[in-house]
């Protein structure tokens, strides 16, 4: 069985800071990590490999330094890593990104047919959740998003059964390979990298593909040119005309502060007082 896992190197969003005066992103020193959602998919792929045998290839599109994220995945147990990188990809939105990744997966499949593709549920920087469905459509794969559990895989019958998170419940879905899965967060726990795999990761040869090597001929479909969406502006939210009414009291006693704010709240929003009382009565 051959599984391809698409990952993305992202800035650790918890550590992004905005310059308080200029409202620009302060990029210096923000560490790059493997998108955390991708790790649930990678772990699931590795578990399937443990159970059924086969190989896991990790794939990313990004700048040359994204190689570090691929090596990280190899240290967890991925067999092979491919970096698709080219200046022509710059500025890609999700439509152009899924085009490039789908082409690369097609190329990977020329050597060894791909049975399963995994993507993260979404990324923590873009948060769109669009690239997985996009790749599935382009490769005509059955799409299984928000999977909480892979119940059964029958390689002989090419059948897979999963549980999928829906609104208000869980769908049990049965479909055939090849398919594309995005895993729900918290559904498994990434294994520790073994010493062997860490050494292997350090030495591993990451295959680097440019546009042509990834099998992309139509430059109008990638990068900025292939992206229908345009970021017209980036801005800080405008301050409300009215800022908070600051509670001032003569003493610093918490009780005085509490009495003042609750008093104001219940006089200026009388309905709220009645509503709360009714609810508790």
């Amino acid at each position, binding site marked *: 069985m051959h599984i391809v896992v698409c990952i993305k190197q992202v800035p650790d969003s*918890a550590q*992004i800071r*905005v310059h308080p005066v200029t409202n620009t992103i302060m990029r210096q020193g923000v560490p790059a990590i493997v998108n955390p959602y991708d790790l649930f998919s990678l772990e699931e792929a590795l578990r399937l490999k443990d159970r059924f045998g086969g190989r896991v290839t990790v794939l990313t599109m990004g700048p040359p330094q994204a190689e570090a994220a691929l090596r990280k995945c190899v240290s967890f147990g991925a067999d092979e890593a491919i970096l698709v990188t080219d200046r022509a990809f710059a*500025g890609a*939105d*999700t*439509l152009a*990104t899924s085009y490039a990744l789908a082409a690369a997966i097609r190329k990977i499949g020329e050597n060894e047919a791909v049975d399963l593709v995994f993507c993260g549920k979404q*990324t923590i*920087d*873009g*948060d*769109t*959740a*669009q*690239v997985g469905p*996009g790749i599935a*459509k*382009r490769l005509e794969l*059955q*799409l299984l*998003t928000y999977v909480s559990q892979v119940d059964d895989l029958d390689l002989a019958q090419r059948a897979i059964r999963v549980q999928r*998170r*829906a*609104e*208000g*419940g*869980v*769908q*049990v*879905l*049965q*479909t055939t390979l090849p398919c594309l899965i995005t895993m729900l967060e918290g559904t498994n726990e990434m294994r520790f990298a073994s010493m062997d795999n860490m050494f292997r990761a350090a030495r591993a040869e990451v295959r680097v593909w440019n546009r042509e090597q990834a099998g992309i001929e139509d430059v109008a479909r990638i990068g900025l040119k292939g992206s*229908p*969406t*345009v*970021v*017209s502006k*980036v*801005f*800080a939210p405008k*301050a409300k005309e009215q*800022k*908070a*009414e*600051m509670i001032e009291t003569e003493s610093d006693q*918490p*009780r005085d*502060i*509490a009495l003042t*704010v*609750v008093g*104001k709240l*219940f006089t200026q*929003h009388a309905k709220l*007082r009645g509503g*709360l*009382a009714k609810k*508790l*009565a």
Partner: protein
Amino acid sequence: MSEASAPARKPAKGKYELDERLKAYQGVWVFVEHEQGEVHPVSWELLGEGRKLADTLGVELCGVVLGAPGLRTRRFCDEAFFHGADACYLVEDPVLANYRNEPFTKGLTELVNTYQPEILLLGATTQGRDLAGSVATTLQTGLTADCTELRIDPDNRSLAASRPTFGGSLLCTILTLNYRPQMATVRPRVMAMPDRDAARSGRIIEHALHLLETDIVTKVLDYIPDARQDKPQLPFADVIVAGGRGMKKPENFQLIRDLAAVLGGEVGASRPVVQAGWVELDRQVGQSGKTVRPKLYIAAGISGAVQHRVGMEGSDVIIAINTDPNAPIFDFATYGIVGNAMTILPALTEVFRQELALAKIAV
């Protein structure tokens, strides 16, 4: 890989001339999402927002209903009219009985290609995101996820969709200029629920799909409903008391829980404390957590970063407690208290307890 990482590309200033073939695309559509016989409220919220967009453009607002043949599916169209739609596209087919990506993608794509709307809105739910990404790729058009504001750009009549970016520290506005339809998803509770007017009615446009069950690969074997009781229901809570990093340590969240209990409310939390494991994920408020619109939101030790703000600024009244007088949360809260949450929260709990005991007698 995302809109966020794309460099700002300024569209041409002033009047923007749309390609001739794209001018045929008119009207605002809202996909009416349903599961197990119930429409997700986000669809009505989107109709409320879509109404404003359609009125600004001077075009029709339409619901799109795909489902199994029967009265129940037709009733969804009536509900769409009650919530502001002028017309409803209806596809009734047994293959649409349960949501599945393949037949719904085919159905929605076919409707768009046949009737050509200029804007298509979907809820940013597990169903809406699954479908939107597939449909946008099939149609080769732009899709903006998790928008917090939708407007019509006066210069070029296109949809200006704003959303948080860079980990929720800033907002960006995204346009889809030379592609139609312009697609966007919006998370539940981000937009206000419109008033329901049962006197409204509208036109139903029926469309046949001609799909065979045997052509659809994926089968739904079962549906296991969630046990509802044990899950916090933040999006629809009337009162939320939320804590952030300023609560210093997980044990101090007891003060938050005490106040929430007195107010009959839910406990919420900001992203950092959820990531630190102090509070469960279901209670996270913000762009990457839940969007809430309570009558009263009390924020203790939360600075008010954009990613938190977009998840709770729809609250009627916000009381913010923070030691830092310059915390951004004071820019949009209703009442601000500069002080130590660890001493103010117990005082608030006590005062609310007394006040509400009095008010209860009056009820």
